[in-house]
């Protein structure tokens, strides 16, 4: 769990960088008014998927990156959120936006409860326990007793929401804004949670649980709450995905989904908030790019065999891990440290040699 030191944790308010980023994201749909292309709505849909994955990765990051508990089962909370939204819209006739708080509450409860057995487990053992959750959920969703609500294997087909009050946006532009709003809110909440007492407590537990306990942190409570909040974030992402895809089925929430979240998390960078966004973008883009590369290679070199896109994906992943072992966000931090060191006046050599020694190893 090698985490980079973060200066933002002590900074006040919301970062300027974040503000600029979210405003930039908010201007993207406006391109649709000048660029009249039928594929624009598709790109808006991709944007929604990226934001949704970013939120899900953020949820996992709160647990794994900031609290040091590994989960291979976050697909289960994603599924739970998605089904809560789908069932409330389908059976209870709730408006789509009202399902998000409901999904949040239920997923928080589920995550909190799962946090109790998780207290007894650490590292690989916890990973295995959460893994079982990811395996069990698609099966449970098919169970006869709840088929009436879940639609069983065939799933539930939903209505895609239209923009309210006659706002002159296409449904996809509107949904993009909806996802963007929710994402911005959740990232802001996570940011404030982490730089406060709670966040420092969570990180203290990650770094040294026993030391944290001696300092008076209720580790059991913090760990279960971390699980609950993490599930809440991922569950809201699931609900958003149900709304934008307008369909849920057990096949949508396989074990692979949980692994994707972990991949997004590690690629983006553990315990980094901007890393979650990078992870979300990676999950959507790289898979598609891998397929394009595969098709291109087959066509260009007239190969008799397919180039498996997953192999390309794997190679990209390996290269990334080799070149940026702390994720993209970690890599950027390293670069910043390196540049700062180059620009900074040289440290006087004579004083405190031991400290200088430590600094260099840390930066490496």
């Amino acid at each position, binding site marked *: 769990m090698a985490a980079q030191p973060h200066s933002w944790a002590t900074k006040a308010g919301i970062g300027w960088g974040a503000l600029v980023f979210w405003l930039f994201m908010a201007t993207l749909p406006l391109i649709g008014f000048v660029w009249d292309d039928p594929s624009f709505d598709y790109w808006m849909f991709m944007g929604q998927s990226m934001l949704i994955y970013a939120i899900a990765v953020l949820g996992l990051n709160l647990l794994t990156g900031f609290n040091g508990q590994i989960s291979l089962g976050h697909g289960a909370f994603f599924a739970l959120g998605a089904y809560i939204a789908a069932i409330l819209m389908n059976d209870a006739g709730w408006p789509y936006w009202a399902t998000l708080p409901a999904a949040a509450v239920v997923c928080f409860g589920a995550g909190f409860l799962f946090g109790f057995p998780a207290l007894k487990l650490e590292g690989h053992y916890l990973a295995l326990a959460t893994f079982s959750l990811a395996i069990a959920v698609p099966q449970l969703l098919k169970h*006869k007793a709840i088929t009436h609500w879940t639609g069983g294997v065939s799933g539930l087909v939903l209505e895609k929401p239209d923009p309210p009050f006659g706002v002159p946006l296409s449904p996809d532009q509107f949904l993009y804004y909806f996802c963007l709003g929710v994402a911005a809110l959740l990232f802001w909440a996570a940011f404030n949670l982490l730089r406060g007492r709670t966040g420092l407590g969570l990180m203290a537990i990650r770094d040294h649980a026993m030391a944290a306990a001696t300092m008076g942190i209720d580790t059991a409570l913090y760990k279960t709450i971390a699980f609950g909040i993490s599930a809440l974030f991922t569950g809201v992402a699931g609900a958003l995905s149900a709304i934008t895809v307008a369909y849920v089925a057990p096949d949508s929430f396989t074990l*692979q989904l949980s692994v994707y979240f972990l991949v997004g998390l590690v690629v983006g960078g553990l315990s980094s908030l901007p890393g979650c966004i990078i992870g979300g973008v990676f999950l959507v883009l790289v898979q598609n790019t891998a397929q394009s590369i595969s098709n291109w290679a087959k066509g260009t070199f007239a190969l008799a065999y397919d180039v498996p896109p997953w192999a390309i994906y794997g190679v990209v992943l390996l290269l990334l891990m080799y070149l940026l072992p702390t994720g993209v966000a970690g890599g950027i931090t390293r670069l910043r440290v390196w540049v700062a060191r180059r620009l900074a006046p040289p440290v006087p050599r004579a004083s405190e040699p031991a400290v200088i020694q430590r600094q260099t190893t840390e930066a490496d």
Partner: protein
Amino acid sequence: MPNITRRATILGASTLALAPLARPAIAEAKKYGPGVTDTEIKIGNTVPYSGNASAYGQVGRAHSAYFRMINDQGGVNGRKINYISLDDGYSPPKTVELARQLVERDQVLFLFATLGTAPNTAIHKYMNQRKVPHLFVSTGASKWGDPKHYPWTMGFAPDYHTEGYIYAQHALKNVPNPKIAILRQNDDMGVDYLDGFMEGIKSGLGPDGEKKIAQIATYEVTDPTVDSQMLQLKNTGANVFFNITTPKFAAQAIKKAAEIGWKPAHYLVNVAASIGVVIKPAGYENAQGIITALYQKDVTDPFWESYPDYRAWREWMAKYQPTANPMESANATGYIQAFTLMQVLKQCGDELTRENIMRQAANLKDLEVPMLVPGIRLNTSPTNFYPLRSVHPARLEGEHWKLFGELMTKAE
């Protein structure tokens, strides 16, 4: 100056001379939808090339290989096929994303033979709202031929419901005092087959038919075996066994039935009727006499060697898919679907609009398709969106399915 005039005159004269010939061409003006040019037709598809269901990916490869052959022969009415087949990993949200990519970004004319019940359900509404043909979907669920509500979606293979119905009819006709035991996979395929079967039983015996069912046992795809279910079913003393399973479990059930000495009239669904994957592992000696229903020629059976379409298929396999396993029936499935699509495109002529694609797809008359069991013909109409409605009963004899009886067709 004189030169130009002369050329103009010649031009004028030749135009005049050609006028009567040109008229039909003018009447049949070229009309193109998205993705069509004078030289190309762009077609989209999704199949799982990766993930748990990746075995189905071979169908997509077979399509691509077939279209390569068509392109080598000069294409359809002079237009080459640009086939964009993408991997959705059998994940519905991914299918939605890819369908949108194909329709909105890549601008395909239509989607063809997208695979899987859940993935197709996910894009069913979208395709119909967008008014993009969603042709010959590769799934046996019984909801795809519904032109009234979904005029842009068309099924292809005989649906599970129809097949189940046909087994019921066969059992009632051939087994005296039937007492029926059923093993079914707990998913939508299992439900569809069972519903069709029950309908068949009720149509033969009236509402009392249900009493003939001794027991229905279910299993999950994730179960390790179906041994205990088989023991329960045997203990009911049933003399008819309807085996609604996927390949792995079908092989187990056949083997177990032989082990415990249960010898009912055994009906095995088409989904699991693979010689290579089911019958061989279960043991040929354990599977003698099992009945199934086929619509596609068994690719492993040398019996078909004397049929020209089978030989053409083998040649195509050798030339366009030299690295693929010729024992895999998916290669025939893809071939059949692609052949049918070519017929639709030929009928469209130069009017390659989305509307005309649907019109022509709903206008197949007694189409004979290679690699189908002899006698099966494809028919569609504006009210019939199930091209393939017939199956042929077959019994396992030796190491192959042997056709017997007559083609069975479910009325429209």
